[in-house]
């Protein structure tokens, strides 16, 4: 027996894979607690190796497992009670688990016999050794998990808020609204939701101002509430949700909760709503509070908890009927404040670069005062990106010299990879110097900061309603921000805060920052309020009402945009726009795009204009990037460049999948933005579908192919696994920075991409191994690449006709955001090109725009133009720029521009076109003047535009109305109508060759623009009944302000002062209609109208056929005819307006 075993042991090798797999078969079968192949199984074998080594060491050192030396121990002294403990110590007695192995032993009995023949397989000694190891492993993993739990509970208990748990719950039970105020580190954001959960509340929403906070809080709280792998705690942000039916606590953004209220007015899905960070006073948050305040009256059971820093608490409490406030102390370490105001000689004047000396002194001071082995990083707050790069440059020189610093910039226009570096760890003896905008004040929290240097400045966006312009200006920060910045130094230990201003400056700061609602355009807010039936925005009770002028501006703007009607009620397009989570302008484009066959490119453009530009600023100076980008550029405008870029990216995705990352890097593109675009694009598409603006596609054309479907299914499963794996690894992979880290970026001229490329080459291997491109995985999970490619290929090679139409739609969406090139631009340098908007003169194109490098395409071609006087050029090629944003930083900049033919675009989109008597002089929106050479041409152009617009409007209304009625039968016909309209629009855009001059009106001209109202007794007024019949539907009436005749909502005829003679008969000239046999003297207006209703013979026939074919045909006909009662022959007739005119004339001539 003994010899047997020895033989077995000799052949038994713990390290051999065969031997191990034999044991796996016994202990780790499919149904066992630990399964072969599972991660735990791997852990076990790793543990087993350690355990064996430990055992051998113990045996060598002579102290075996059974303690020999304790024999004859102290058990003799036992006094009171015998516990019945074994006399010999054995570590296994300390394990409270056992593995029940009778079946294993039986099996072993069998295999023992077999093993004798094969002289392999585990003997009983091996089995028991193995079992012991397994027990130790089980005990070890129990201890490990319990240790985590205990640590977690300890940390929770140590939070300042812990002792208020019962008090908070009591307040919530007793009061509808409770304010919890506590400073950084008190634990309110993570703990309060948990207290509610454990008290049995189960439909809790907790809003956050930032998406990233929703994700990280959901992660943390689900971990702390021991539900890391469940969905009790979830989050929901724009494109992602982890919410399931079992979710009890949901973190979501403020904007999203507002959208939910829009859909579900009483918000029945929640029992408790927590609004976190209310002190930050974001637009959505202020509005949300107002909405919830009204909601509370409807839902007395709803519980509302406001959480805030200890800032201005009274304001919130009073807004909610003196709600009780619970104040919790924060947990900050002491922070020493040092005021180091910048001496006057180092203060930069407005135009100069920042002087880096005060900042360098801080770095030097830290190096002198604190030994390098005392860790702690520096966080430096500056106002903007330009300031950051100035200081970064200077600090980098110092860092390279001392080798004690790694300098890292942090702002939102950096690539995400660059932003992420601030979380990495500096090597020993080296500190990070993070130079940041106010993004690090609240949004980004970096651990390990011990020193803060605060410039006291911030750049903030404000809105100038007069110029309709956003402005990015530098301000002193508020005391609240100042304290917040200081607090960043005391999160992990005592810290120091250097303030680059004096204490008296500090005292002069405003107490709080200006709330967002006072700074920004309120268009979207007002639109949303309207759609939520909140009544007059002016009387809505905001926590801190915005200036009424600001509301008024927004209402006017929405009216201009056609979202509100004259009574300030939502129009049908307005209702739709209110549902779209985008700017009104972008929403409008989407709706317009859906009418024509341009949905796919429009979806892309709308998505692209709604996210940050994917083009990284830093790589603009990089010649390699510029060359690689060149093929993507379109000189039609930035939206087209974005469209090209997206399409090219999708193609790369389809061909090379993960290779797109490299493709982007080479072109200086932030791929994250493209991922955002593709997600947003899909959301838009779904929204359009759900509003009936887009026919749902035939479902799954590849559905029949089973093999393919299965393939896709397995791929999805794999992707899901990858995503899960990635999520588990996350957080545990902070890298150690290299000393050269900051240097690279600096030396290559702040080209983050060259640096990354360099780095990528260096450690390609370990990158590839550990770094799954999680974005690529998510992308593949969310989108069907081939479907996307198909969609994109539609918009890949737009014909010039489609391009023209797309431009027009963009222009109509963007209207009134139009700019006119200055007349002297041809003589200016590329960089000095000047433009004018209606409300702001002298704006320039942002350097990121294609037009800044290629401004010639905006010039009137010399060959084509005729100078007809000073500052006046006659041409048929005048162009305007439609732009997305006008933002003033150091200069007012236009960005995201598209060029459009001026006359055509203005006639088709503008809100007001005024003319003189023969329509050769047009004034658009009271600021642009167009003078046409030929009255004949002028009339033709104007009348074409008017009829195109009428048809466009009719189809648009039908499209918008249809989605409510849901009449499918109309679709076929309206599609044909749409095709015809788009063809006509294109023809108008591309082939209108009318020579005209285009200029701004001077101030003097604007003053004396209109003739003004005419006395009723005017003899010529008697003629107007004729005119009133000209335009069915909108009967022309004298304009009470401008004078002349208001013919359509946008067109006022003959109201300009230079008009020769009002309604004068002498303007009538004989004219023969090319389409019918009409030949008679007509005024320009009459002629225009005749043209609008008289179609060429061919078209007419077709129309008649159509009307026979479909019911809806009659509606298109009936649009042209109207009931008319003739007083002379006393008959009721149904005639078109021209027919009426003819009819009347008959009587007139016969009477004469």
């Amino acid at each position, binding site marked *: 027996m003994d010899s047997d075993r020895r033989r077995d042991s000799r052949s038994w090798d713990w390290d051999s894979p065969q031997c191990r797999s034999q044991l796996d078969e016994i202990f780790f079968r499919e149904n066992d*607690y630990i399964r072969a192949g599972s991660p735990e199984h791997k852990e076990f074998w790793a543990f087993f190796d350690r355990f064996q080594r430990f055992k051998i060491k113990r045996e060598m050192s002579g102290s075996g497992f059974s*303690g020999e030396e304790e024999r004859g121990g102290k058990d003799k002294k*036992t006094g009171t009670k015998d516990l019945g403990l074994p006399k010999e*110590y054995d570590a296994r007695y300390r394990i409270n688990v056992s*593995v029940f192995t009778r079946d294993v032993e039986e099996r072993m009995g069998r295999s023992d016999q077999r093993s004798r023949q094969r002289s392999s397989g585990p003997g009983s000694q091996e089995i028991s050794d193995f079992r012991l190891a397994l027990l130790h492993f089980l005990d070890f993993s129990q201890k490990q998990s*319990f240790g985590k739990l205990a640590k977690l509970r300890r940390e929770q208990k140590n939070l300042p808020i812990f002792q208020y748990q019962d008090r908070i719950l009591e307040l919530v039970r007793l009061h509808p609204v409770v304010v919890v105020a506590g400073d950084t580190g008190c634990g309110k954001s993570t703990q309060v939701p948990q207290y509610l959960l454990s008290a*049995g509340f189960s439909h809790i929403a907790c809003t956050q101002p930032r998406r990233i906070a929703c994700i990280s809080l959901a992660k943390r709280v689900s971990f702390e509430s*021991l539900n890391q792998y469940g969905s009790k705690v979830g989050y929901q942000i724009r494109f992602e949700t982890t919410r399931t039916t079992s979710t009890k606590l949901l973190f979501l953004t403020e904007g999203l909760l507002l959208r939910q209220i829009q859909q579900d007015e009483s918000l029945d899905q929640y029992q408790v709503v927590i609004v976190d960070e209310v002190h930050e006073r974001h637009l959505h948050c202020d509005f949300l509070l107002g909405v919830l305040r009204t909601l509370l009256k409807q839902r007395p059971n709803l519980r509302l908890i406001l959480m805030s820093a200890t800032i201005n608490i009274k304001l919130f409490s009073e807004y909610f009927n003196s709600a009780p406030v619970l104040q919790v102390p924060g947990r900050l370490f002491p922070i020493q404040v040092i005021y180091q105001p910048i001496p006057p000689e180092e203060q930069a004047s407005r135009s100069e670069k920042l002087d880096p000396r005060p900042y360098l002194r801080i770095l030097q001071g830290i190096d002198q005062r604190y030994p390098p082995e005392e860790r702690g990083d520096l966080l430096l707050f500056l106002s903007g990106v330009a300031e950051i790069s100035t200081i970064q440059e200077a600090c980098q020189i110092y860092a390279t010299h001392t080798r004690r610093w790694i300098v890292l910039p942090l702002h939102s226009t950096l690539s995400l990879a660059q932003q992420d570096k601030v979380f990495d760890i500096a090597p020993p003896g080296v500190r990070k110097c993070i130079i940041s905008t106010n993004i690090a004040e609240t949004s980004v929290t970096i651990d390990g900061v011990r020193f803060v240097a605060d410039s006291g400045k911030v750049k903030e966006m404000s809105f100038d309603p007069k110029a309709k312009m956003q402005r990015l200006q530098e301000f002193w920060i508020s005391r609240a921000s100042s304290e917040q910045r200081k607090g960043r130094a005391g999160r992990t230990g005592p810290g120091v805060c250097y303030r680059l201003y004096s204490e008296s400056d500090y005292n002069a700061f405003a107490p709080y920052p200006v709330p967002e609602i006072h700074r920004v355009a309120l268009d979207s807010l007002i639109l949303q309020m309207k759609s939520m039936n909140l009544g007059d925005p002016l009387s809505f009770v905001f926590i801190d009402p915005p200036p009424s002028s600001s509301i008024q501006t927004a209402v006017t703007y929405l009216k201009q945009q056609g979202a509100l009607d004259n009574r300030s009620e939502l129009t049908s397009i307005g209702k739709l726009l209110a549902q779209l989570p985008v700017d009104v302008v972008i929403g409008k484009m989407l709706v317009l795009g859906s009418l024509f066959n341009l949905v796919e490119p429009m979806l892309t453009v709308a998505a692209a204009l709604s996210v940050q530009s994917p083009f990284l600023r830093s790589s603009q100076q990089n010649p390699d990037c510029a060359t690689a980008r060149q093929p993507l550029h379109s000189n039609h405008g930035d939206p087209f460049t974005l469209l090209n870029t997206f399409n090219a990216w999708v193609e790369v995705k389809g061909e090379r999948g993960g290779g797109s990352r490299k493709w982007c890097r080479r072109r200086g593109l932030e791929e994250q933005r493209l991922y955002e675009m593709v997600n947003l694009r899909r959301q838009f598409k779904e929204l359009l579908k759900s509003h009936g603006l887009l026919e749902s596609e035939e479902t799954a054309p590849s559905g029949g192919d089973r093999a393919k479907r299965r393939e896709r299914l397995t791929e999805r499963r794999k992707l899901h696994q990858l995503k899960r794996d990635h999520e588990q690894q996350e957080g545990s992979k902070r890298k150690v920075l290299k000393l050269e880290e900051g240097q690279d970026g600096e030396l290559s001229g702040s080209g983050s991409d060259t640096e990354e490329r360099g780095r990528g080459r260096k450690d390609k291997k370990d990158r590839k191994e550990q770094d799954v491109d999680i974005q690529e995985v998510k992308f593949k999970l969310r989108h069907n690449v081939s479907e996307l490619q198909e969609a994109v290929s539609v918009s890949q090679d737009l014909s010039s006709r489609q391009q023209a139409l797309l431009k027009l739609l963009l222009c109509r969406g963007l209207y009134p955001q139009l700019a006119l090139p200055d007349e002297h631009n041809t003589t200016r340098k590329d960089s000095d090109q000047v433009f004018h908007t209606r409300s702001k003169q002298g704006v320039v194109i942002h350097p990121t725009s294609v037009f800044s490098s290629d401004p010639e395409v905006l010039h009137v071609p010399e060959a084509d133009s005729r100078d007809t006087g000073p500052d006046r050029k006659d041409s048929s090629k005048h162009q305007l720029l439609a732009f997305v944003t006008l933002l003033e930083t150091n200069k007012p900049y236009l960005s995201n521009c598209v060029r459009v033919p001026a006359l055509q675009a203005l006639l088709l989109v503008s809100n007001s076109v005024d003319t003189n008597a023969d329509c050769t002089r047009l004034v658009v929106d009271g600021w642009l003047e167009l003078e046409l050479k030929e009255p004949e041409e002028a009339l033709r152009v104007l009348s074409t535009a008017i009829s195109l617009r009428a048809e466009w409007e009719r189809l648009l209304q039908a499209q918008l109305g249809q989605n409510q009625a849901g009449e499918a039968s109309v679709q076929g016909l309206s599609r044909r109508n749409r095709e015809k309209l788009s063809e006509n629009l294109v023809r108008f855009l591309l082939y209108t060759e009318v020579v005209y001059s285009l200029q701004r009106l001077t101030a003097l001209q604007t003053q004396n623009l209109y003739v003004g109202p005419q006395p009723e007794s005017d003899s010529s007024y008697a003629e107007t009944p004729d005119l009133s019949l000209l335009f069915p539907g909108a009967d022309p009436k004298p304009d009470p302000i401008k004078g002349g005749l208001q013919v359509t909502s946008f067109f006022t005829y003959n109201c300009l002062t230079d008009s020769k003679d009002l309604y004068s008969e002498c303007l009538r000239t004989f004219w023969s209609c090319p389409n019918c046999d009409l030949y008679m003297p007509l005024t320009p207006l009459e002629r225009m109208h005749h043209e609008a209703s008289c179609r060429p013979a061919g078209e007419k026939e077709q129309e008649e056929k159509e009307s026979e074919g479909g019911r809806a045909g009659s509606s298109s006909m009936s649009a042209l005819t109207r009931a008319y009662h003739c007083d002379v022959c006393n008959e009721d007739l149904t005639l078109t307006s021209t027919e009426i005119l003819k009819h009347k004339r008959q009587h007139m001539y016969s009477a004469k």
Partner: protein
Amino acid sequence: MDEAIETPQKTFTCQLCGLSSPFTYYGQKPPNTRAIVLLEECFVTKDPFSPEKDKFLVLGSTCSLCSLCVCVSSDCSLFYTKRFCMQCVNKHLDQFPQQIQAELTKKQSSKAAVS
């Protein structure tokens, strides 16, 4: 509505350190553990730190001498063939083997050094 259906969670609380956490099973044979048996009646929950749903975690049990409810933390209890709360261990320290006694004194002195 849902709240009404919801069964109140059973909570385990250590009578020495106050640690408390919901538990899902009390006994010696947690569900789905196959060959594994506990050598004492334990308060058990699903291991919240493991992605696998069948992994269990022992929170604590009752002291075999005084029936105090204690968690498995080495500050509160000790298992040596049976569960003993720390109070009972200290009372009967002499009956425990040398190794354990040494370990406990070492731990106590290191604790004293810290505080």
